[in-house]
């Protein structure tokens, strides 16, 4: 039985080199998760694959905002990611609109999350007052 890290490495290599079509790769990963009874670890497997891709120069990020962002803002976010991972990495973005964060931005990267939302700041202020 292969470990999750090895499977993630295999999937990342397949995605980078396009050796296996994406839909077929997804089916293979789902089959592996089911066979090894690791379906609960699917989110961790996705994170591992994203981490492997980031290590190989392909960074997938999720941008969550309260309002749709402009191209300029998106470009600034990508620049910020380049400053963190290096200028030569390829950045793929996924935008999510969530009014619950009120304002600001939340960026999820393979190695962590940057929460600069208004909601988080409010909660920090309130908790500071409570203490």
């Amino acid at each position, binding site marked *: 039985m292969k470990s999750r890290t090895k499977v993630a490495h295999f999937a990342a290599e397949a995605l980078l080199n396009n050796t296996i079509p994406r839909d077929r790769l997804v089916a293979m990963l789902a089959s592996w998760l089911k066979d090894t009874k690791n379906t609960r670890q699917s989110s961790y497997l996705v994170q591992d694959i994203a981490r492997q891709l980031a290590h190989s120069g392909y960074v997938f990020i999720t941008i969550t*905002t*309260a*309002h*749709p*962002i*402009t191209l*300029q*803002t998106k470009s*600034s*976010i990508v620049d*910020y990611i380049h*400053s963190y991972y290096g200028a030569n990495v390829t950045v793929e973005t996924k935008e999510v609109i969530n*009014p*619950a964060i*009120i*304002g*600001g*931005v939340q960026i999820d990267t393979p190695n962590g999350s*940057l929460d*600069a939302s*208004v*909601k988080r700041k*409010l*909660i920090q202020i*309130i*908790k500071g007052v*409570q203490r």
Partner: protein
Amino acid sequence: MILLQFASESSAPPPESVTATFGISWQALLFQAITFLLVVWVLKKFVVGKIYSVIDAREKAINDGLAQAAKAKEELANAESEIDAILNEARTQADVVVHNAKKESAEIIKAAEDKASARADAIMHDAEEKLKLDVAKARQALESETARLISEVSGSILRDKITAEKDQKLIMKELEKRREK
């Protein structure tokens, strides 16, 4: 007168021998003596020896019996003294065993009490710790829930204030701030 008459009558006996008077014959007497000695010799030779040997054997048997009885009596006395000694030793050992058993049972009871006491203390300590943890968790949950509610209320007020344009500026400002760090 009478005395004189008697004296006169006893003073005139004719002299006669003793053997003749009692009718003893020397030949008959000799023959009887030889016969007696012969009988004595025969008795001694064939009868007395056997009688003595039977008597000696009986005496020896009686003496042996008495000796064995004395020996048995002595052995009985020794056995009784040994029994007394064994009984005394057994009583002493029994006393020691009972004493040790009482001591051990007391120690076991004390150890069990100590263990139970320690266990009770540990349970109490765990319960107190769990209670503290639960209180802290409840307090934290309450604080988080309060903060969430306040943020939602504030958010509903701010949501109208933060337009898409202002939000872009806010994001850009935040990114600049992060870059500077």
